[in-house]
């Protein structure tokens, strides 16, 4: 850490050996990670893995039993919530309040004064096409609009750190796309983003860096591309026209044959170049040849089963 301070700006969030237990149940067990400087951080794990417990500590709603969290190199304190925007998984609005008034209330709780909050709220509502809804009661809004208002309330105070817990759950595709665009824009403007989810495909769309949490522990961390490469297991996809030589089937294991191509699994010592050479020698009309990288879902299942062989599919069991 000391070196970090000297060499570069400290990460927005650094979590160091954090542990949190509720009674007997250890929700977060010795988790350590730091936000990379310019990547959206994906906090991944099945339901009940400890993501929300971890996030509640970062947002200062709860405090760690041991370990510590740093915000921009300073210990997390009561002042930092004004610099964090948090969209919880369980979220809602006061149904009887007016939209404008509601946004002002939440923005002022984040330390904005009334005037700047009003300007910001109007700007954001206009951005989402909701400028005519200032004097509407929240309960009069459609569900999608309410979710947009929730999002605005999360970002209205220009937080340095945005924490989104399952932000896309229950969102229709149009709203999801709009929110994704806004998240990417804010990130491009320098806002740190932590994106927590149990949906792997969403992480792959948004995040360059992930932290995998299972049963309260950080089990895998790194750049998405690196991780997938690390978990690649010599599988290649071949797209071709015509017939494959018989010798190929003898020497190599062929999986998933489809009309346009096949997946080929290399065995010990087999090299991609040898495979290609064989195909070229047989004069196969090759349209495409690429390495198959595992999806994060596969990586996750692999990693979890590796640590705990009895748990073959953590997602299915946890979600049931």
């Amino acid at each position: 850490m000391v070196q970090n301070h000297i060499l570069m700006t400290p990460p927005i969030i650094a979590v160091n050996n954090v542990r949190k237990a509720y009674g007997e149940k250890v929700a977060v067990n010795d988790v350590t990670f730091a936000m990379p400087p310019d990547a959206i951080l994906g906090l991944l794990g099945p339901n009940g893995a400890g993501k929300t417990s971890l996030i509640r500590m970062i947002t200062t709603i709860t405090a760690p039993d041991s370990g510590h969290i740093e915000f921009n190199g300073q210990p997390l304190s009561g002042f930092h919530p004004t610099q964090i925007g948090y969209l919880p998984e369980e979220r809602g609005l006061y149904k009887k309040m007016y939209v404008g008034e509601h946004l002002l209330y939440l923005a002022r709780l984040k330390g904005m004064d009334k005037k700047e909050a009003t300007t910001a709220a109007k700007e954001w509502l206009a951005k989402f096409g909701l400028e005519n809804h200032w004097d509407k009661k929240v309960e009069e809004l459609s569900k999608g609009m309410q979710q947009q208002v929730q999002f605005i309330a999360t970002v209205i105070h220009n937080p340095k750190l945005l924490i989104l817990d399952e932000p896309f759950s229950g969102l229709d595709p149009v709203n999801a796309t709009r929110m994704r665009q806004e998240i990417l824009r804010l990130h491009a403007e320098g806002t740190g983003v932590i994106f927590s989810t149990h949906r792997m495909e969403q992480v792959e769309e948004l995040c360059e860096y992930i932290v995998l949490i299972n049963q309260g522990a950080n089990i895998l961390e790194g750049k998405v591309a690196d991780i997938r490469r690390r978990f690649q297991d010599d599988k290649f996809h071949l797209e071709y026209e015509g017939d494959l030589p018989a010798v190929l089937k003898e020497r190599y294991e062929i999986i998933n044959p489809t009309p346009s191509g096949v997946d080929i699994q290399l065995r010990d010592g087999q090299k991609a170049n040898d495979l290609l050479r064989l195909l070229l020698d047989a004069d196969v009309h090759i349209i495409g040849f690429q390495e198959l990288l595992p999806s994060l879902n596969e990586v996750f299942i692999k990693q979890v089963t590796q640590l705990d062989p009895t748990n073959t599919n953590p997602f299915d069991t946890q979600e049931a």
Partner: protein
Amino acid sequence: MKNLWLVIQREYLTRVRRKSFILATLLMPLGMAVFVVVVQFIFSYGNDEQQRIVVVDEANIFNNTLPDSKNIYFKFRSDPLDELKANMATDSSYNAILVVPSVTNPRLKNFRVEYFSDDPLALDTELAINRRVEKAMRKYKTTALELDAKAIAALETEVSIKTRKITVEEGEDDDTSMAGIIGAGLGSVMGFLMYISIFVYGMMVMRSVMEEKMNRIVEVVISSVKPTTLLLGKIIGVGGVGLTQVLAWMILIPGVLFVVSLIFGFDPETAEQLQAGSAASQVDPDELQSIVEKTLAGLDEMNWWVIIPSFLLYFLCGYFMYAAMFAAIGSAMGDDMGEGQSLTLIVMIPVILGFYIMMAALQAPNSSLAVGSSFVPLFAPIVMPARLPFGPPAWQIIGSLFITIAFSGFMVWLAGRIYRVGILNYGKKGSLKDMGRWLFSKY
């Protein structure tokens, strides 16, 4: 501090401008006015069926004079009883016969008259007959026994107790005869106000907590505000709502009642009837005047400098401690509201017990029960206001207030600890055991 103020503002404003609040605040005095009018109407209705009673005065105690009263008419007849009975069906000039038998012994203690009618004897008719016969018998006996009417009148003595203080402070009247009644009146008003406020506004705090939890807004809010700040803001905000409502009622209710009395007017005759039989009807105007004066003097003599500030303190403490308890219960409620109803019982039982102790304390403000309860912080805010007008010793007020203030602070702290865990516990309601666990959990 700024956030606390924002929370208070929100809690207050969103409630005060709600239609239901405005309606309740305005309709309650109107409702009371309607109630008063209806009650007055019911009482004034009385018996509109005419009672025409034939009196057979065998004893001749009435001397052929019997005053009628409203809807009850007396008529003397000397016809034989059997004939009167037989003619009753055809003769519509009477529907009852009163037979006053001759008096054989002027010293008799019990005297029975007979009333013949197919209609049951109405209460007001019975009262009218009783009073007339008693009066006539008295007169008759006085003559028969050759007694001095004036001497007999002198036998009756109305006794009143004039209580006087032994140690009288300068400028103070030593006469405390009305103090008991005034104290009880004032005490019951204050105790009752306390009791109602705890229930109405404590419940309001509980609903507010549950609403936030069910709306799932609470996690958003506590990512900016400490849970204790939110809780405190809620209690203060709702308290402000309660204060607004009570103040509005204090102005509106007497106002509306005044207007109602102007419009409908109080029929003097019904008022007289209402008081008929009660002691007040016998009070002569001079005496009434002196009672009013004494009441005013008694109110004036109340130690307002002690009563008002102490009452306010008890009121605040009582509200805070019970509102905090209601909030803790609300935070433990699950998504199914009905499931958690039993939890509210824990809070309601001490309030109700306190209320009954208060009723007892009004009768005996210095009983060991009343004094003891003043030092039980759960009861003190309800019991002590009722005792205040009776001038309890200073050490009791100070001691009780000290314990109550400390306890309500402790209660708010305790509720805060349950609340901060409870609000994030979605789904099932927390049990008492859970709440105990939350109390001691680190957060």
